C-alpha cells in the first residue's frame, strides 16, 4: 500500500487508484504466465518462432512469479519495476521474430504493439508508485479553530461597519447602484 504525498491534493491518503491498477496488472501477469506455460507451442506457432517453447514457458513462470509478488506484497512498487524489466525482455525476444522471412511477421508486429501498450501502463504505474510515500504522512493540521475573531464569523459580519472608507477608496459615484443597498437607506434615489 502506498500513500499520496504532501505535494498531492489529497496528501497522505492511500492511493487506491494506482494500487488497484497495480493489482490489475498483477492478475494480468498471472493470466498471461499461465497461457505461456500451458500453450507455449500454440504461441510460438502463431508467431512463427517455433523452437522457443522452453523460453516461452520460462517467461510464463516469470510472469506468474511477478503477478504473485504484486498481489501478495504490501508494497507492489519493486515488483512493478520488475514487470517493466520483463517487458523489455519480451520486446527484445519478439523483435527477433521480425528477422528473416518469418511468414507470421504480422502476428509478431501485433504482439509487439500489445506488449508496448502494456509496457507503457507498467511504466506509468511503477513511476506513480515510486513518487508516493511508503508510509502514511502525519495527519493534516486542524485549523478549524483559527478564526482570529472573538465570536463566530456570522456574528462578526459587519462589525467594522463603523469604518469609513477614504474618499479616494470609494467606488466612483458614477458606478454606484442607483438604488442603494445600504441598510440605512442612504444613497442615491432611483431616477424618476
Amino acid at each position, binding site marked *: 500500500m502506498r500513500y499520496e504525498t504532501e505535494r498531492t491534493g489529497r496528501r497522505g491518503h492511500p492511493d487506491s487508484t494506482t494500487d488497484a491498477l497495480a493489482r490489475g496488472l498483477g492478475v494480468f501477469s498471472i493470466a498471461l504466465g499461465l497461457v505461456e506455460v500451458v500453450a507455449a507451442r500454440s504461441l510460438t506457432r502463431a508467431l512463427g518462432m517455433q523452437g522457443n517453447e522452453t523460453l516461452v514457458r520460462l517467461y510464463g513462470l516469470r510472469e506468474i512469479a511477478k503477478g504473485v509478488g504484486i498481489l501478495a506484497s504490501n508494497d507492489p512498487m519493486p515488483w512493478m519495476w520488475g514487470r517493466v524489466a520483463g517487458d523489455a525482455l519480451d520486446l527484445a525476444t519478439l523483435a527477433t521474430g521480425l528477422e528473416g522471412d518469418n511468414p507470421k511477421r504480422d502476428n509478431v508486429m501485433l504482439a509487439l504493439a500489445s506488449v508496448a501498450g502494456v509496457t507503457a501502463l507498467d511504466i506509468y504505474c511503477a513511476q506513480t508508485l515510486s513518487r508516493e510515500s511508503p508510509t502514511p504522512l502525519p495527519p*493534516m493540521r486542524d485549523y478549524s479553530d483559527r478564526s482570529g475573531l472573538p465570536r463566530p464569523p456570522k456574528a462578526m459580519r459587519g462589525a467594522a461597519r463603523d469604518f469609513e472608507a477614504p474618499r479616494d477608496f470609494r467606488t466612483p459615484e458614477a458606478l454606484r447602484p442607483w438604488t442603494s443597498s445600504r441598510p440605512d437607506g442612504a444613497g442615491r434615489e432611483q431616477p424618476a
Partner: protein
Amino acid sequence: MKALVWHKPSDIRCEEVPDPKIEHPRDAIIRVTTCAICGSDLHLYNGYMPGMVNGDVVGHEFMGEVMEVGPEAKGALKVGDRIVVPFTIFCGECEQCRRGNFSVCETTNRNREVAAKAFGRTTAGLFGYTHLTGGYQGGQAEYVRVPFADKTHIKVPKSGLTDEQVLFLGDIFPTGWQAAVQCDIEPTDTVAIWGAGPVGQMAIRSAVLLGAKQVVAIDRVPERLDMARAGGAVTINFEEESVIERLDDLTSGKGPEKCIDCVGLEAHITSHVDSMYDRVKQAVMAESDRPHVLREMIYVCRPAGTISVPGVYGGLVDKIPFGASMNKGLTWRMGQTHVNRWTDDLLRRIEEGQIDPSFVITHTQPLERGPEMYQTFRDKQDGCIKVVLKP
C-alpha cells in the same frame, strides 16, 4: 549580528553581517524582537524579482525595540519605544505622502532612477526587497536601520499586546484590509478571494468585518482552506472543482461583485491551457509573471464589479482579456499597501478584541532556522501558512 542573507535563488543563509549604524539624522536603529517571512519574500527566494544582489539582507515584516535615534527623529521616537515597522518606507512630506499614498512616496527610494526606468516613475523604498526599491537591508536580522524613522513606524501602546498580535500591522493585516477596502464592500456583495495564504486569510476576515454578504476563498491547500472556513469563507478547492461553475452556483449565475487577487505573479501551474502557456513563456524569458488569476477574475467578475490586486506582480503579463474587462466596465484597484494609512484604525480593532491577527501563525522558530523555514513555507509542508522568526 546575525541576519538572513540572500545569495542566489533558493539560497538564503543565516550569517554574520556588520551591525547597522545611523547614516542619516532621521534614522533609528531597532533591535528586532520578532519578524516573519512574507509570501512576497518567496518571490525573491524563487528568483522572480529582478534587482537582488548577493549579500542582501531580506525581510520586511518585523518589529522591535528602539535602541538608537537620529537627532531629527527624536521628536517622534525615543530609546526603548516598542515599534512595528511598516514595509513601505515613507517621508510623510512629499506630495504622495500628503495624499496618504505612502507606498508611492517620491522621496524614500534611493534608487529612484532605476525604479523610474522600470516603472516609468519611482515608488517608495521598501525593506529587503531588491535594489529597485532602494536596496535597503531587511528585517530578518537582529538589528535594523530604519530610515525616515520619525514617520516609518507604528508605536505599540503599553496595553499588554504581544508581538504576535501586532507584528502583522507592518504588512499582511493592512494589506488584506486595503484589498477589502479597495472593494468598497456593500452588504449585498459576494467577495471572491483567490489565494488563502496569509494575505488571503487577512482579506477574508477584513471582508467579513466590513460586512460582505458572502466571502469565497479559492485555493488548493487543504489546511489553508480549513483556516479560510474558520474565518467565515465558503471555500473552493480549484483542484477538485471548477472555480467558475462553483462561483456561478454561489451567485445565481451572475458572478461575484468583488474579486481579490491574493496570489500574484507565481500562480500555481494547473492543467488549464493558459497556465501551461504562462509557464512555457516564463521558462523562455518571454513573460515574467503568471497571471492566470487575473484572467479568471476578469472572466468571472460581475459586470460593473471591482477587481482588487494586493498580490505582487513584478513585470510583464500576457494574454490579459482586457476587452472583457473594458466591456464589463470593471474597476481595477491595486498597489502596494499604504500601511500607515490604516494602522491607527487596525491597532484600535486589535486592542478592542475585534480581531487577533496571530491566528495565522503556524510556525515559530529561531532566526537561525530561517533558511529551512523558507523552504517549508514555499513547499507548503507541515501545514505551514505563516512563519514567525525570533532573532
